[in-house]
């Protein structure tokens, strides 16, 4: 076990075969992978295929129900809903990956520093993390986005700011466990620099749980973006963002069910897909951490 952990390459190869195994045997994992992959494909290629412009208005074709020409109907300004959803997928996935990326990098850095440096640095950073975790994330994001003013960039900033703390805590607890392990002590006794120890020995060993957390986190970021856009803080019209589409379609609930249901179902499927994927990744990559992650 310790040998495996001290050798990142072997560990990765190990997990890779276990990953394929799990995905083969686990129906839910398959669903997650399929959903996420098809979303990525749709987001990347969908807009290239669609014959419509996501913002071009066509008032002669308002609120048309789903038909072969408009598979998901048109909205109150005659725009093709499917096309807008596809562009929206690009936006949602892009934002989710970017925000999660920032959270991951910042959180991991803080966690590494806190865990490895220890002492007052650890103390200070972890109290900050505690404070952030004590706030209901979406409320804090709402305040930040509200103060900065309505725009998609500000929403991304707000979500990034409120979300990195869980990563920091996860990484720190892993680092605390690792720093006294033989391979780390050995490296230190051999006179390796701090940077070397962190980069070569610590980071490879925290990657797995962090990736799992990130996958589970993506769903939350998508929900957060859609939520903030829904209340008008995020994407500004006519940007085809799922939350904005949901909000503007709401008044037409009775006349045009597709306006609300299309983006609503999209958000649900996406979040579900990432959560399923995250769950199966967790089973594969860090079985021992499952219990620990539950608490985050």
């Amino acid at each position, binding site marked *: 076990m310790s040998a495996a952990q001290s050798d990142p390459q072997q560990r990765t190869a190990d997990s890779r075969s276990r990953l394929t195994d799990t995905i083969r045997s686990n129906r839910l994992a398959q669903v997650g992978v399929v959903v996420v992959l098809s979303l990525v494909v749709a987001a990347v290629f969908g807009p290239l295929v669609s014959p419509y412009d996501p913002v071009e*208005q066509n*008032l002669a074709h308002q609120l048309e129900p789903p038909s072969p020409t408009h598979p998901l109907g048109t909205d109150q*300004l005659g725009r093709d809903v499917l096309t807008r959803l596809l562009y929206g997928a690009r936006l949602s996935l892009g934002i989710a990956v970017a925000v999660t990326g920032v959270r991951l990098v910042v959180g991991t850095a803080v966690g590494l520093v806190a865990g490895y440096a220890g002492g007052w640095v650890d103390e200070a950073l972890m109290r900050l993390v505690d404070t952030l975790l004590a706030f209901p994330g979406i409320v804090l994001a709402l305040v930040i986005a509200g103060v900065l003013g*309505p725009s998609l960039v500000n929403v991304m900033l707000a979500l990034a700011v409120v979300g990195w703390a869980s990563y920091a805590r996860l990484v720190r607890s892993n680092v605390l466990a690792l720093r006294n392990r033989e391979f780390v002590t050995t490296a230190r006794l051999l006179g390796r620099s701090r940077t070397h120890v962190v980069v070569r020995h610590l980071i490879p060993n925290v990657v797995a749980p962090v990736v799992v957390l990130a996958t589970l986190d993506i769903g939350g970021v998508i929900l957060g973006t859609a939520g903030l856009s829904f209340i008008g803080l995020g994407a*500004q*019209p*006519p940007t085809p963002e799922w939350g904005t589409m949901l909000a503007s379609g709401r*008044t037409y609930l*009775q*006349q045009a069910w597709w306006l609300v249901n299309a983006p609503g179902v999209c958000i649900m499927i996406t979040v579900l897909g990432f959560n399923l994927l995250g769950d199966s990744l967790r089973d594969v990559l860090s079985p021992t951490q499952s219990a620990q992650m539950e608490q985050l």
Partner: protein
Amino acid sequence: MVDITRRQTLFGLATGVSGLGGYWALGGDWVSGDDGAPSGDDAEADTITVGSPWTPDSLDPVVNGWLWRRISVLEPLLTVDYDATVAPGLATDWRRVDDVTWEFDLREGVTFHDGTDLTATTALPSLRRAFESSSMASVPVESVEAADDQTVVIRTDAPFSPLPAHCTRGTTCLVSPAAIADDGSVSEPIGTGPFQFERWRQGSSITATATPDYHGVPPRVETLIYEGITDDQTRRLKLENDELDMARILPNETADTLESRANLTAHTYEIPRARFLVFDVDSSPFSDRRVRSAVMHAVDRDAIVENILSGLGSAAVGPFPSNITDWAVDDLEPYEYNPERARSLLSEAGWEQDGETRTRDGESLSVSIWTYNSRPKLPTIAQVIQRQLQEVGFDVEVTLMESATIKEQAKSGSFDAVLWSSSVLWYPDPDRLSDFVHSEATTMFSGFENETVDRLLEEARRTSDRDERFERYAEVQRIVHREVPIGWLTYYTNVVGTRADIDGYRPHPTESCYHLENVTRQR
């Protein structure tokens, strides 16, 4: 579908036009006791529940009087008739004794809900309190006195013709002196209306019951429940689920759906409210009148009414809808939808087409339109305007903000244009124009300054002769039309849904009162 829409539009127009002396008109109700009241019918002793977007937040008429007045608990000295003119209320008659002195004859035989008689003495405390309050700061009242038992005399600092119109505002509603505590606060809305206050849940609902010995036509229902429900979809659903008898201010497109249900009815009617663009006349590019006119020519207002407002409403010409009020001037030439004209105006102003967006001296014609969500159609209209302005070479960004934030930021700093909606006649006097275009009195933040307009508005404020006043307001409307500090886009049609068994409801154009005392339930 088409038929229903047309019928409703006609109905809306008819309601607007036939304002004069209607069967249910207040004037009629006040004067005679037996006018139109069916002789005692036990089945009518019932409850009616009405839902509106506004939550009851205060028992104080100075803060929330307009709401208590809408549900007929409180009454003001004067009321607004169905043709949007000032009509008798608790005062049967009023006259201007000299430039600054007004006399109001109080109605005889009126008692407050606590049994106190309405006399000049008992009316004074509420009136003084109202005119001293900050919400009446623009009304220069100097003193309120009792001339005799039934006559109230109000003196103003300067000649002020709109005074009677301000005496219709909810703020000035009369409450019993007993309701006013020693520290000047009001603890209970003890008024004179056909319904009296029973209880409330702050921020959510009010229960009122019929006043036993009401001085006019007594209410036909026993209990009135008012619910403040902010979300329009919730109001609609509650109406459909039988939890409300009347849901007010529903989205235009629900009118057809409501009509198609056997147990529901939609009332659509125009109100004196407009949607308009406020331009910042102090900053580029809208400092140039030609650019503002270009916007007006580039926007297809009929298409907005047809496509976004479900055909309910009409394209605006000036501030006042002429089928609701006589203060509208009828010789304004509407800005016709003409993108070519818009393009040539922009070129004339130096903005040359260069790729998609026009430029002038390296600056591109980029503008930002601010608007808000709480009036549901505004964001959609903003997007249509965005698209239509792009057609003639603007680059437009739409930003949704809170309405309060917009006001604050537009007042303190520079902006480009704001898409806004507000009542143009919430007190029935054209002096309301001052709020839009007077250089100092304005609350509409365009930065417009025009000496002639200021002078005309101030003169009209002093003059008592209606025709002379009209002349001046007409001229103001013409100048504003030419200078376009504010671009009027569309007027406003309200949709009220009721259960089909609700009878006798007649929408009031200024909505100053719902007149639910006239409503019956058929069983």
